[in-house]
């Protein structure tokens, strides 16, 4: 047996590891490049919305919180907020939040489609043309773990901007657009969780990442070996 020819062995290791994880490494660099290039605030759709119009409240003229907890005893928390400009008490419960008119004290019914559209328009910054409004009872993939029901309001635009609105409080729950959806696919490919798109501890990713570590280190070894080898040859 002759001595181990390290350069050959390492080159073969580098090559075979690259054959094994090459496609994934290309996907990591391509998806990584997308994720670093398009700013995360843009991906989150911060540019699509503005804060809901507000203004100060005068609690002395409104229904007292003590009266609200008397009528909604299951409330765990009360918050004074606005629904289409009018003051309301939002009562958090273990199920859906309940809204109480802060001027009359009556419980408010779930929003109508027209109210939902008005609420969506009041926070949306783009062209206010609505393409579709749907009350969803099953979560679409892009709402991840958020539990329905909620209204899905899609506005006109190449990037299909979509706002999700709470059916009981009219609040903005989430916003999505084309670049978010591309990011979500990029993220799925990056973490190799093709079902939930959220588990960064999956075995496939663990095997692929450690193979990539070995591939990168063998590549680094080859690089330094080739530099030294050249010097020796010249000398």
């Amino acid at each position: 047996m002759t001595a181990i020819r390290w350069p050959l062995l390492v080159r073969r290791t580098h090559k075979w590891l690259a054959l094994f994880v090459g496609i994934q490494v290309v996907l990591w660099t391509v998806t990584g490049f997308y994720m670093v290039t398009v700013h995360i605030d843009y991906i989150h759709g911060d540019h699509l919305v503005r804060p809901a119009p507000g203004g100060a409240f005068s609690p002395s003229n409104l229904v007292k919180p003590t009266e609200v907890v008397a009528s909604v005893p299951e409330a765990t928390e009360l918050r004074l907020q606005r629904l289409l400009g009018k003051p309301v008490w939002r009562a958090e419960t273990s199920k859906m939040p309940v809204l109480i008119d802060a001027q009359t004290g009556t419980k408010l019914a779930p929003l109508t489609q027209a109210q939902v559209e008005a609420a969506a328009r009041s926070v949306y910054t783009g062209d206010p043309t609505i393409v579709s409004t749907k009350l969803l009872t099953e979560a679409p993939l892009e709402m991840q773990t958020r539990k329905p029901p909620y209204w899905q309001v899609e506005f006109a635009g190449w990037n299909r901007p979509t706002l999700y609105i709470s059916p009981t409080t009219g609040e903005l729950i989430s916003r999505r657009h084309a670049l978010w959806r591309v990011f979500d696919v990029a993220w799925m490919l990056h973490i190799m969780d093709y079902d939930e798109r959220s588990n960064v501890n999956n075995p496939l990713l663990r095997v692929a990442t450690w193979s990539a570590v070995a591939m990168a280190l063998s590549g680094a070894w080859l690089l330094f070996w080739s530099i030294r080898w050249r010097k020796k040859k010249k000398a």
Partner: protein
Amino acid sequence: MESLARRKPFFTPLLFRKIHKWVGLILGLQFVLWTISGAVMALLDMEKVGGHAAAPSAASSSAWPATLAPPPLPGPVDGLLLRRVVNRPVYEVTDRSGVRLLDAQTGQQVTVDRTLAEQVARSAYHVSAPLKQVTRLEKANLEARDHAGPMWRLDFADADNSSSYVSAVTARPLVTRSDTWRTWDFVWMLHNMDYVNRKSFNHPLIIFVAFGTLWLSLTGFYLLFKSFRRREFRWVLGPWRPEAR
């Protein structure tokens, strides 16, 4: 080798091999760091790292006391909440002077002292380990960087060296950090290359390196097709008649 390159067109495997080597030389270290930090993040248990979900609510489901009083607020407010701090009903008032807590039974201002902060942290994060140290921070440190305002830091003597952060203004539990998170955060810094704030992955440095690394991976992928001979696959493809080269 050189004479061979001269006879062939510009885009030769040799050119791609050179690009692969030079990009590797310049950006290879970061590529190695990306693979290692990625691999470590894949190993660290997400549940133990934590900190991604919103802070758990400390609300209890017990009934509101009959002695609840309306908030003593003569003027306008920007925000008003009725909530509980551990089990005590409080009003959280936001107005021009900032945010303050008022006891919902007596109307008196509630100060979030270290005892209250400890109660909040224990009930929100279910910690039973003894308290090691309590520090008041006027501004968030690196660990609590997603939150603003003065806060209490409570260090517990548990196996994972947990530190819980509680707002000194609203008494809300903000976040809890552990040694697993600290390891994760260090490698996340190596991954996102934001060595100061550890937060942004959209800065010019990472965009530049990611662009260069695209060349490393794409030339490498191309070279895969130039680096193997059919005989190297004999173990899977079976014997083959001599190649017609």
